[in-house]
């Protein structure tokens, strides 16, 4: 198992390196940061001077190696836009995104699994079919439109929830949390739903189909044949087996929640890393973009690793070596 973790980490590092290379090579095409950094009365000499200062005149591999060296030391450079170390900015922004992702992930997983189990057990029931059909609306409209509609309904028309932002936050060390204030919690509701809806639908449908698959396995029939209660059969026996394949997909979904947050954060002006990234694109803030992509990759790789380890925890077939009576 240790070998496994080591190998995984090694592979992950490779993945990160490639991600970095790919990402970095692409930035050259996103736009030119110079125009955003100089006012309208700039001269060509100013442009040339700034280019040299930023190292943009150097060949791409040199820039990449420089970036990697810095990144290895946790130094992602200085934001072109804000003139501050990117790492500081990321640390400042990450809590907002992580809290949003956590809440919507929680929402997606709990409701998704709950509804998935429900629709699987009541496979042909009216309610189950309704839920299945209605849930598809969540994946049939673009996220940004859902967000805007929610704002329109709950913030503008009904006035129940704030239309944007994170509300009041409380700082605990470097971490800023919106969990501890009423306005912070209220502000979380709409973005979390917007962000989680899509993942919830996917998880729900996955749980349903896996559960249906499991429910027709022999060991479920055998459990029924032993007269065990439906609830025990459905939850103790079926659900746990359902979760094994669900975990992978859910892990991947959680990763994409953080990426999808870009859109939600833009619509709700949520002060997280996604919004930061969109702004960075707008202003061609290359160091921020690079660091963001690395951050996303690290999270993704981390989640993948956790998912793999979860497998070990949940599935004894992977845990034990060739011991026992074979």
């Amino acid at each position, binding site marked *: 198992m240790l070998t496994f973790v080591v190998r995984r980490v090694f592979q992950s590092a490779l993945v990160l390196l490639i991600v970095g290379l790919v990402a970095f090579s692409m930035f050259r095409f996103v736009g*030119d940061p110079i125009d955003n950094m100089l006012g309208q009365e700039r001269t060509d000499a*100013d442009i040339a001077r700034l280019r040299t200062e930023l190292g943009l005149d150097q060949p791409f591999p040199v820039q990449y190696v420089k970036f990697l060296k810095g990144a290895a030391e946790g130094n992602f450079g200085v934001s072109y836009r804000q*003139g501050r170390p990117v790492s500081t900015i990321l640390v400042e922004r990450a809590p907002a995104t992580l809290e949003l992702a956590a809440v919507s992930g929680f929402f997606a997983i709990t409701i998704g699994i709950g509804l998935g189990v429900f629709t699987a057990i009541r496979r042909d029931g009216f309610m189950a079919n309704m839920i299945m059909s209605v849930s598809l609306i969540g994946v049939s409209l673009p996220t940004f439109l859902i967000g*805007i509609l929610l704002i329109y309904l709950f913030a503008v028309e009904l006035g129940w929830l*704030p*239309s*944007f*932002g994170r509300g*009041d936050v409380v700082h605990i060390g470097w971490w800023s949390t919106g969990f501890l204030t009423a306005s912070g919690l209220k502000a979380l509701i709409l973005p979390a739903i917007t962000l989680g809806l899509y993942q919830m639908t996917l998880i729900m449908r996955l749980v349903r189909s896996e559960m249906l698959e499991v429910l027709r396995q022999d060991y479920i029939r055998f459990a029924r044949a032993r007269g065990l209660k439906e609830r025990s059969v459905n939850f103790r026996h079926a659900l746990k087996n359902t979760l094994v394949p669900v975990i992978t997909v859910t892990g991947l979904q959680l990763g994409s929640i953080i990426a999808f947050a870009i859109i939600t954060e833009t*619509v709700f002006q949520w002060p997280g890393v996604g919004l930061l990234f969109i702004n960075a694109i707008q202003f061609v803030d290359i160091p921020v973009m690079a660091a963001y992509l690395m951050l996303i990759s690290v999270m993704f790789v981390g989640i993948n690793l956790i998912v793999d380890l979860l497998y070990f925890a949940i599935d004894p077939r992977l845990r034990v070596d060739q011991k026992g009576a074979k």
Partner: protein
Amino acid sequence: MKRALSILAVASALGGPVLAEEFKWAGTTDPQTMDPHAVNSAPVLGFLNNVYEGLVRRGKDMSIEPALATSWEPIGNGEGWRFILREGVTFHDGSSFDAEDVLFSYQRASNEVSDTRSWFSPVSDVKVVDAYTVDILTKAPNPIFPDSIANWMMVDKGWAEANEAALPDKENGNYATLNANGTGAFMVSEREPGLRTELVPHTGWWGEVEHNITRAEFTPVQNPATAVAALLSGDVDMINPVPIQDAERLAGSGDVQVIRGIEARVIMLGMAQESDVLKYGDDEGKPNPFKDARVRAAVSHAVNVPAILKTIMRGNAEPASQLVSPAMRGYSNANADRPAFDQAKAKALLAEAGYPDGFSFGLKCPNNRYLNDEAVCQAVTSMLAQVGMMAQLDAMPVQNYWPELRADNYDMYLLGWSPGTFDAEHPIRFLASTPNKEKKLGSWNFAGYSNARIDALLPMIQSEIDATKRQAMLDEAAQIMQDETAYVPMYVQPLVWGTGQNISLTQRPDNFFILRWVSVN
């Protein structure tokens, strides 16, 4: 602290004496720095106008009025200007303001690494006469110099040096990037770059307080629909801008008021006049028709500006006939009419120029720079198509747009220009002069428009002190550009702000939001 304030706010809502007036506003762009000399851009300078002050400032009508200088006068025969400084002014940190700070601010703002350097290109020297008198000497007589330094803000020498911010540092940032110490009516109490900036009144401010704000918070909101929703739901008290299409309905809704004005920015079409061939469209590689003034004139007749104003701008904008708006100094009243919308004439002109069947070309356009820029370009595309000029429209985000223009990748393009000096000379210098790197002329003249008479007029305009003679030259320049259709000015961009019903404020044409004119009722 925030908690305490919100408790206060609750107390006031409960009917106690109105002590705390919180004001929240939203704009599209966060000021990227708090350093007044690092970046010469409207969001930064507009915001910092509330925190820092210059020797002079602009009033509600854009006129120059005394600020940190109480008076100024020309020295000799146009050798420079003498400024008498206001006494008893203190910075936010309590230190006092004097001539040394002016000299320091000059050195800081005119340094090579400062983005504001170009303002001081006419300046030859700055001399401290005494603690409250400063002489600014110019290389040539410069009648509009005081007008050109309204955004030159005073920084405390002691503070800057103590915090190792004697020079702005745009690339790596320094103390002044995040902190501010001005003399203005408000001080920055909290700053989270890109997220929110909180201001509180400067109790030791020298001026007469017109506002009743106890705390103000600025939040950048990019998505226009979100901003409108925030205004409607009362989450913010003011937004800038209101999407033009929403203005009318918001004004009619009763919950909010819409404040409309005309900005200094003129939106125009530029056409490649240097390139020998067309670069885009089906006629790519063929001779460039835009070199012919008749074709350019045909464009100006083919664009139905009234229709654009009526629909896309919803009656909020004014047509433009020249590169500056009527509110600017040096506006040419003699050339106030723009070419009429006349498709027949446009076709005739095209035929005359040898293009009876029109031609195909490429139109580049930003899609997030000016109000409804993309929609305007689309409308222009269809209007030109109706007279046979088939434009292939390529709209892109502004970060990709400028590099394209710099690389001359266009046949026609959309440009907005707001003269930083609020004077008609400014666009001539940047847009109409033959490009010249050494003299730093025509740096935004992507089109490559070139006219010897205009080039000759510019230095004369710059140094002419007599207002009438100067205006005559400006009129001549405007006339030439209109005759040759150097650009096709279309309209002056509108200013549309939205506020809650309980807010009163003053809107200035430069789109600067001046907090000290705001009151919450």
